[in-house]
């Protein structure tokens, strides 16, 4: 379906709030984005910026008491927010699959890898044990696991982190999902394994036709992998746009600061790597105006009364910052080319 006008996943004004101290605290506020067919979208932000909460909310996996999810998330036109648990369960694992940050703890320790992948296949399709295992072995082989038949019979603790993450991806892909949500899939792995796993994720578009929502805090991973990027700060969208544009001409000071904190590969090394001063606010203590205000070098009076609205900057690029509208946009980054693949 090349001429499909409807994106695969269309998230609009997603809000997630949890009760605390008698009120509701918004962990995620008005997040909107789309994922198209066979596209990799990056969701970037510091710890606590609401990346994982957003993903978990899409999957209906938040089960803390009293949590409220509002807004809309349409997956192939089906509304995910407020969907009946049974219907959502059928979707989960089959059409939308998820892989998690820490492959060490993401498998149940007392079952073999193969058993756990079989379980997911058999939860969604009527297949015999033997047929499920055959597919499991084939999937493991596709993910580059050596000796897949024997690996399937091994327990999670017997495999290395990289192998476990491959097995995790094999499990996520076992029912040919159209959307794969990868929550920091490479954070717990060392750099060479990280590169292999990212290569694997990139290949999924062609081999399985899957779209990927890649959650990460690593700008380098985004640059290597994602077509479009969404930057979250303190549960709100700071900026979104095509990755190349975002890296070349960041419109939000937060994005720019994130990019500046990557050591340049070429040219003179800075004496000290610029870091963003201070800590991100907790959702409880978010300041009245722009949440990034207290840490922003360009903060001034117009930032303070209310959070700036998302405004269109260029083709496909949006930023929640007052600077472009006031005619003083950030300068394009000189080192942008260096960090691109």
């Amino acid at each position: 379906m090349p001429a499909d006008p409807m994106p695969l996943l269309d998230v609009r004004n997603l809000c997630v709030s949890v009760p605390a101290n008698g009120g509701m605290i918004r962990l995620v506020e008005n997040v909107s984005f789309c994922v198209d067919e066979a596209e990799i979208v990056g969701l970037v932000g510091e710890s606590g910026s609401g990346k994982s909460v957003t993903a978990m909310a899409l999957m209906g996996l938040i089960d803390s008491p009293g949590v409220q999810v509002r807004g809309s998330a349409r997956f192939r036109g089906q509304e995910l927010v407020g969907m009946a648990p049974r219907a959502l369960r059928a979707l989960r694992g089959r059409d939308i699959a998820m892989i998690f940050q820490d492959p060490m703890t993401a498998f149940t320790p007392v079952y073999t890898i193969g058993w756990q992948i079989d379980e997911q296949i058999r939860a969604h399709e009527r297949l015999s044990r033997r047929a499920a295992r055959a597919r499991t072995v084939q999937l493991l082989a596709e993910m580059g696991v050596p000796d897949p038949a024997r690996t399937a019979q091994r327990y999670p603790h017997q495999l290395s982190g990289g192998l476990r993450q491959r097995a995790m991806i094999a499990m996520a892909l076992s029912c040919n999902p159209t959307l794969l949500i990868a929550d920091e899939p490479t954070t717990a792995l060392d750099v060479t394994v990280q590169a292999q796993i990212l290569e694997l994720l990139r290949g999924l578009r062609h081999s399985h036709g899957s779209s990927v929502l890649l959650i990460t805090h690593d700008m380098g991973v985004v640059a290597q992998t994602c077509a479009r990027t969404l930057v979250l700060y303190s549960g709100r969208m700071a900026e979104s746009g095509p990755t190349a544009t975002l890296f070349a001409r960041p419109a939000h000071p937060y994005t720019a600061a994130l990019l500046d904190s990557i050591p340049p590969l070429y040219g003179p090394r800075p004496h000290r790597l610029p870091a963003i001063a201070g800590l991100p606010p907790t959702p409880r203590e978010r300041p009245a105006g722009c949440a990034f205000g207290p840490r922003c070098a360009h903060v001034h009076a117009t930032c303070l009364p209310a959070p700036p609205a998302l405004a269109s900057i260029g083709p496909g690029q949006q930023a929640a910052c007052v600077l472009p509208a006031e005619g003083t946009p950030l300068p394009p980054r000189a080192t942008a080319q260096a960090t691109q693949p």
Partner: protein
Amino acid sequence: MIPTLLRRLGQTLFVLFGVSVLVFAVFFATPGADPTARIAGRNASPQIMEKVRREYGFDRALPVQYMTMMKKLFITRDLASYADRGELVVPQIEQAAPVTACLVCGAAFIWVSASIIMGTLAAAFRDTWVDRTLMLAGLVGISIPVFWLGQVTNLITQSRYHDTWLFSWVPGLGYVPFSEDPGGWFRALVIPWVVLAVMFIGIYSRVLRADLVALAGEDFMRTARAKGLSPTRVMLRHGLRTALVTFVSLFGLDFAQLVGGGALLTEVVFGLPGVGRLTYRALTNLDLPVIMATVMYSAIFVVVANAVVDMVYLLLDPRVRDAR
């Protein structure tokens, strides 16, 4: 896995040897106390004292005494209790052990099934009235002393309401061997089973609930839900199965100490001639050979049960299997 099992068996034998030496030392090699007088019992005549001294070799070196004692316990099995007019000790224990085993196994079956159901339900309905009611019931069960509960059930089923339709089937206190009358055996034991199980149901269901609630926050439980499994399957196949590892280790210890004589109060209250009651009687008579033999027996049981638990562990937890 086989070498692991063999090694564990070797360790068990070694520990048993150590335990027997210790028990022997406590009873017969304590300085300043004459074991002869203690074995012979109160007001023994000098002739008996002399006979005991020679029979047990108390005039010879300690290792010889130890060997004599172990021979009398395990090989010739003619350790006799002088306080009780020469009755042999080992057959007494052999008679008492099946009673205790029946009592404890039945109770264990009840408390394991009840606590798994209660703990799982409470965890599944966490923070609802189901959870609170079950856990409160568990707390009440833990708080009731077993001898009191036994006496009260006796009062109700044996005297106060014995003639009503509800409890007329309850036989008098005592034990009926299974081989004589299976129905009578069951009727004689069912109330002691429940009474003994009550406290353990309380403890185990609370422990299991706490484990399951802690596990619910684990990554692999989230993975299981993300796979699209039903909540029941996530809870049972992933949560409960993993929580069983702790459950089994707890169970092994409690089961062993009960079989080894820890069910004393229940046995005394219900007049069951088990190991606990044997120990109780021996203690009141200061019947040293019997006390030593029951202590030895229960030590063996705890050690063996621990070995069994370790082996079940190997089956339950693949991580343990590789760690050795």
